[in-house]
């Protein structure tokens, strides 16, 4: 079984995130980069599947030079090889452009499964897996909390608000995972050292045969016109109960349109 896992480098979860004044895009240099947390679950699940069924895991990332660290992290967890799409032209790409670029890189490589974390902690759109599936013309099994493979059939439990749906498709298919699915492993020291020797293919936009006009900030379907810093936290309101505490609380909540 050949599995691709798409991973993204995002600013460290706890870091203060900022936009750049020049083009209103996320300032990726302002914070340490880490692998998007849900992507670690996708890598773990892919490794488990190949450990059980044989095969190989290829990590795919689109991102600046520094995103190579995230590829290496996945390789140190046990993935076999990496593909890194890196190009200035990609800067500021929206979800449509990202899905276009990823789909082009993924197609014709013979993957049985293409796995994703179900959202990234920076953009939080949760649409790229579905878009990639659509562009590749293959089934999408999203928000998986459990994945089983039997021959050409993939069955997942799709997490819902009230429980789960069982969804099934034939490979090739896209699977996105939620964090309930597993406990990602830590890279072992041997894995860390072995990662340096694993092949990583670096592609530019032209290497990947992509149309530059469909990529980057200028091609984005939405534009950020302006942004402002979040106002500092104001002091809270203290309700003193003088027999009418309940009414006062309700009044406050109504005023804030909570009730």
């Amino acid at each position, binding site marked *: 079984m050949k599995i691709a896992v798409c991973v993204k480098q995002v600013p460290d979860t706890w870091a203060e995130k900022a936009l750049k004044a020049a083009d209103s895009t996320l300032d990726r240099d302002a914070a*340490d980069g880490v692998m998007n947390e849900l992507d670690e679950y996708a890598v773990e699940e892919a490794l488990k599947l190949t450990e059980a069924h044989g095969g190989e895991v290829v990590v795919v990332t689109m991102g600046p030079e520094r995103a190579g660290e995230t590829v290496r992290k996945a390789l*140190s967890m046990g993935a076999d090889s990496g593909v890194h799409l890196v190009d200035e032209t990609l800067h500021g790409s929206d979800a449509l452009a990202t899905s276009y670029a990823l789909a082009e890189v993924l197609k014709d490589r013979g993957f049985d499964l293409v796995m994703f974390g179900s959202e990234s902690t920076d953009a939080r759109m949760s649409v790229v897996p579905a878009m990639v599936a659509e562009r590749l013309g293959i089934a999408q099994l999203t928000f998986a909390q459990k994945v089983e493979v039997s021959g050409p059939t993939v069955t997942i439990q799709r997490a819902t608000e009230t429980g789960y749906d069982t969804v099934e498709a034939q490979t090739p298919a896209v699977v996105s995972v939620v964090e309930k699915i597993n406990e990602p492993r*830590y890279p072992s020291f*041997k894995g860390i050292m072995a990662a340096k020797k694993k092949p990583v293919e670096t592609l530019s936009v032209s290497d990947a045969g992509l149309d530059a006009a469909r990529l980057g900030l200028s091609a984005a379907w939405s534009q950020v016109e302006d942004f402002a810093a979040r106002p500092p936290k104001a002091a809270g309101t203290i309700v003193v109960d003088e027999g009418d505490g309940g009414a006062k609380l309700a009044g406050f909540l109504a005023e804030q349109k909570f009730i």
Partner: protein
Amino acid sequence: MGRLAQTEGLTDDQRDILAAVREFVDNEIIPVATDLEHKDEYPQAIVDGLKEMGVFGLMIPEEYGGLGESLLTYALVVEEIARGWMSVSGVINTHFIVAYMLMQHGTEEQKQNYLPRMATGEVRGAFSMSEPGCGSDVAAITSKAVRDGDDYVLNGQKMWLTNGGSSTLVAVLVLTPGEVAEGSSVYKTMTTFLIEKPEGFGEVRPGLTIPGKIDKMGYKGVDTTELVMDGLRLSAADVLGGEPGKGFYQMMDGVEVGRVNVAARACGLAQRAFELGVEYAQQRVTFGKPIAEHQAVSFRLADMATKVEAAHQMMIMAARKKDSGERNDLEAGMAKYLASEYCRDVVEDSFRIHGGYGYSKEYEIERLYREAPMLLIGEGTADIQRMIIARRLLEDYKSRG
């Protein structure tokens, strides 16, 4: 992340190893440490995680299944782990010392026998010099091995074995007076034996009893025990290096790398105390402003950070010196001395910043406050370090007058 205690000139491998350990510490150790410590519970899940990661084989050569990393890498890993919980670094410390003694002084057969199993963490080491009647004055030990045909019979009582119960291999120092010429120096009358044993307490093998855990002020979770030998029969093949009379020097060699290790622990503990203090100082408001804005508190923070940084750089220097193949007893002694004293200071300052809450078991600093003093004692007390430092200085700066 702040910029304190950085290390210049690391390789990619070292950086990645440290990042992996830090992530493990933040996610798997810090959230549970205080609770486990209060219950004095052995951190089995954490030890298993570190085993899988490969921590136990970090410095063991590749030919014996380890990673062959340097003392520096090892010390930096220990620093990260101690930042999470000192007791966890204690689990690895004695293992590392025994593996190091085997690497340096073991016979090929002993290395083949133990190192591959130590690299995976299947065999875990403890070492034992101290006795009820002596710690600093190692030469005052009274435990004895007497030859009986091809065997040795050991009798005596040992004290303060870190990992005494959970380890399966103990390097123990005893007298072997019958093996050396009459009138030899006492230092040449000591021999290190390797004792393999099952985990646990009670009479774990005929003639060998691990009575139980010593109840300690801090450094809980990891077991510290006595060890009683009563007619324990070992073979001549169990003598470290195969030759009696070298035990003292072998142990001192082990303790010397152990000192860098204790310095690294002190650095990790101090870093955590600083992190807790600097965070709390920005949250707690008195007289209308966060206490960090009162000069007395900000000066405390400045002192703490300066000590954290100085101790870290000193520890790195001592580790690099050893890695370069040079003698590092002076640097190791200085690093251990400085880092453990500074650690105590930084923890104390952080404790004070916490006000009354620092005295509550709900706050992590309460645990650190009980842990820091151990570093002033273990692997040679501060006064013993000063003796070593001074002795070496008087050699180097010997008066020509």
